[in-house]
């Protein structure tokens, strides 16, 4: 029963991955790739480590790798931090006996149900500097000069982070809510009998009880956010102030007439390497705390 999946994964992930790695050592682009429709053989040549050297030198015409990496990290950890804290806060509120709990739950999960590209359009509309509802609201509050959100400044990065936080909180909330519900109530009762304050109960019962859920969803969240493409690309387009590694790779893939497949692939391999290193460190850190994972 596993066989179909193994085959699918091998054909559609491992084989392309191997090929993608191979492309990073060539100068492949739209002009020299094999094209069965035009009946044209491949004519790209090996360039050794050239692509890597150009990118890792941090050259601006190759995407200014290091500063883009820093921006990617700001984006990733900023988003995941707010996903987790807001998600946990809402999950704690929803885990109580509240009137209309299921209504709140449906409303709060709603952002997850809306396709991401629709949300992107909606927020782009709301963030517009002149007619967007957000700046209208800020002016109404007495802020005379609200920022141009999606222009060439760091406000654009703030804006896309806000959108991604809005988008990602429901998943965290639902996962953590499930985690909260699996903590046995006896533990709370015991803690209460022992005279633990609410804060102590939260620190010593809730957080340890959520450990395994948290470690999984935080890791997944980091991986997904690191590779999140649609939101940034659809809201700000190729704006260098919101450029992260993945969007730049896509720009490269699509830029101009000669789609630069080689550099796009090289970026892909570098992204994968960063994530693998991170996951390794993360796993080791968890294991040190006695987590079997």
């Amino acid at each position, binding site marked *: 029963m596993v066989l179909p999946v193994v085959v699918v994964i091998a054909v*559609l*992930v491992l084989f*392309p991955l191997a090929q*993608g790695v191979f492309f990073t050592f060539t100068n492949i682009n739209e002009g020299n790739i094999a094209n069965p429709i035009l009946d044209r053989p491949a004519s790209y040549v090996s360039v050794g480590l050239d692509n890597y050297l150009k990118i890792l030198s941090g050259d601006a015409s190759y995407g200014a790798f290091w500063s883009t990496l820093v921006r990617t990290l700001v984006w990733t950890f900023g988003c995941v931090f707010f996903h987790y804290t807001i998600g946990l806060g809402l999950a704690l509120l929803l885990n109580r006996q509240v009137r209309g709990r299921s209504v709140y739950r449906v409303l709060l999960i709603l952002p997850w149900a809306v*396709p991401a590209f629709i949300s992107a*359009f909606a927020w782009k509309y709301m963030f517009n500097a002149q007619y967007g509802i957000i700046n209208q609201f800020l002016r109404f509050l007495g802020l005379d000069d609200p920022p141009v959100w999606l222009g060439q400044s760091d406000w654009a990065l703030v804006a896309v982070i806000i959108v991604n936080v809005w988008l990602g909180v429901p998943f965290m909330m639902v996962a953590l809510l499930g*985690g909260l519900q699996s903590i046995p109530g006896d533990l709370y009762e015991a803690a209460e009998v022992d005279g633990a304050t609410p804060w102590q109960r939260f620190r010593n019962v809730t957080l340890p009880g959520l450990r395994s859920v948290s470690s999984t969803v935080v890791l997944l969240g980091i991986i997904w956010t690191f*590779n999140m493409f649609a939101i940034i690309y659809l809201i700000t387009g190729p704006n260098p102030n919101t450029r992260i590694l993945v969007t730049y790779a896509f720009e490269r893939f699509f830029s101009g007439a000669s789609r630069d497949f080689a550099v796009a692939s090289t970026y*892909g391999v570098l992204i994968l390497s960063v994530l693998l290193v991170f996951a390794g460190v993360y796993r080791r850190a968890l294991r040190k705390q006695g987590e079997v994972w």
Partner: protein
Amino acid sequence: MTVEAASVKVVQPEQVARRRPERLRKRTDRSRLASVGLHGALVVASLIAVFPVFWVLVTSFKPDAKAVETTPKLVNDSSLDNYVRILAGDKGDFLAWFGNSVLIALMTTVLAVFLSATTGYAASRFRFPGKRSLMLSFLVVQMFPFAVLIVPLYNILLVLGLQGTSMGLVLVYCTTAVPFCTYMLKGYFDTIPNDIDEAGRVDGLSPFGVFWRLVLPLARPGLAVTAFYAFLTAWGEVAFASAFLSAADESKTLAVGLQVFVQQNRTEWGHLAAASILVAIPAIIVFYLVQRFLVTGLASGAVKG
């Protein structure tokens, strides 16, 4: 018959256990002020969650010119014109895009749920060589940025003759959806006691019969989340769709097609909003069908995963 009885008996205590935390704090325990604060926080959060969708809905009825006024009003020359013009095909072949998206999303959902259910079950119940590394590789697959896959996949689809077709996209989406779904479903299957399988075996069911007739029905919450995730993956995906589908207007999906409303200098917000609402409806229907399973389904997957 005996099997049914066994399954009922096993599931009940689990549900009771899940409900326990709710009993913990009774409403009477809370001061009035705390109640107000609780509801206040939830109302504010719900408003933030719902407002963008509400605002798109309001905008969808306005003409393009009224949608960009500097003093927005809730209702301004509102009518159904945007919807009528989009459905009539004035702004590109909307119905064809819609059909493509539905077809691709449904095929992805069916294929992904089937593949991940069988794999997840196998990983949960059987020992086989490479099982650990298989599960680990599913996690690693999540890390593959599409940027590294997009060129070779483009190449493969070109060679297979699937470039520009829906089937090609379905296969590509499955590679994203299947690993995560398998991971979750394995966790869910782990929470279903093995006794049920054994009881089924005793009653003379084949291994596949046990899986199909006993385990799958019990795993409905997990399957619902999986289906939801797979559907949304395919319904809302932009990058692969814009890279792989042919330029012909009638072969586009919604995610690609809708970009015609966002032109270089001018965005037709009224029309875009109306189209967005039409696109969001199927996703919200799917969401509504599965939402009551989401918490249980996702939780056990993530807890045990």
